[in-house]
């Protein structure tokens, strides 16, 4: 459970040491460049650069693959659709664009502590205080979302086990209802825990 959980991989590489703001700006720039690329060869070169960045960050192959894995079926479907309605170069370009953008976003989360991301987000959103938005609450929301992914995955695994034990593993209702109830219970408990830590004032 490393992919969408955005789990930080500790390290001292240059990518790790870059300031969060620089990483996010570079990510935005890189995604723009990916959109502008029109040749499959240029896209292949971009893929090479992304691979080099992962190698330089030394986060490991497993962590790198975990970033792509959640979108693999989406990428296959996207490729198929483009092949059906456009042509092979378009299918390669569009699918690579999505996969490389996801990989780069994954590289940022793998090499950046959530607390550093929260601090950067708070700084970036601070002008919105004037219109009544609380940057701390928004960054907390981001952190809780990341933290909740493994918790909900664990709840889903428990519900699936209980389904199997009762022989109803193919029932969507028997999966969805207890999962939603458990997730809501978890949300209630988390809210109470945040209050207990003095975060409701």
């Amino acid at each position: 459970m490393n992919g969408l959980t955005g789990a930080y991989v500790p390290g001292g590489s240059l990518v790790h040491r870059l300031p969060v703001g620089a990483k996010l700006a570079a990510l935005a720039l890189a995604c723009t460049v990916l959109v502008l690329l029109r040749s499959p060869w240029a896209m292949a070169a971009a893929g090479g650069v992304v691979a080099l960045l992962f190698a330089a960050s030394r986060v490991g192959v497993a962590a790198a693959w975990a970033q792509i894995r959640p979108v693999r079926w989406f990428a296959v479907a996207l490729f198929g659709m483009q092949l059906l309605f456009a042509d092979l170069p378009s299918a390669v370009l569009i699918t690579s664009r999505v996969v490389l953008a996801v990989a780069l976003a994954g590289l940022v989360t793998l090499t950046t502590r959530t607390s550093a991301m929260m601090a950067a987000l708070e700084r970036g959103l601070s002008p919105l205080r004037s219109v009544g938005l609380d940057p701390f609450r928004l960054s907390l929301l981001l952190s809780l979302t990341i933290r909740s992914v493994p918790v909900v995955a664990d709840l889903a695994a428990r519900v699936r086990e209980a389904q199997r034990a009762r022989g109803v593993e193919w029932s969507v209702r028997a999966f969805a209802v207890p999962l939603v109830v458990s997730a809501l219970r978890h949300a209630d408990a988390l809210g109470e825990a945040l209050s207990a830590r003095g975060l409701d004032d």
Partner: protein
Amino acid sequence: MIELVDVGVRLGQREVLRGVTASLSERRIGVIGANGSGKSTLARLFNGLALPTSGSVTVFGDDTRRHAARIRRRVGFLFTDPDAQIVMPTVAEDVAFSLRRRKLPGEEVRRRVEAMLGRYGLDGHADHPAHQLSGGQKQLLALCSVLVLEPEILVMDEPTTLLDLRHSRLVAEALRTLPMQVVAVTHDLPLLEGFDRVLVLDEGRIVADGTPDAAVGHYRKLMT
């Protein structure tokens, strides 16, 4: 110092606590009772997570109805399920998160977090994802995240219920060394060893209040 005067709590049609009066000043206080006897609600009254429907609860002289935020800064709370109280993805970040509102310099936060994790044997896990810890380690992390705020009172709601024997012992050992007043709601009777006072709850009322031996004896009779 916690004072409860004729406290009642009603949830919908159900009276969860009634006529509870107690003055809690001892260093180690246990609360035991059957499931549904009102123990967890009682614990939540101590830092304003639950409010009395009747009567009053005061902590260090502050009424929980009017000063809940101020009280929560002085009363830490450890929940049964550590997963529900770990907010940040990694171990050190979660402990540091507690200190955010203190606006301490980064170096001071780092120092306090390292010291706290070192004290409970989690220093080797500082950068690890919190969800990869064992149940006992998660509960110790949750404890670190509460203790780093240096509360004057620590309230624990069944802190060992989800833990195996080894991890229960770890939490029990941690509890023995804590310098502050501790109120522990528990089904884990060995945890009460060395406690100064134990309250027994039954159907929302305090039915026994005394030394651990006397209170546990009363509880055992109640359960037969």
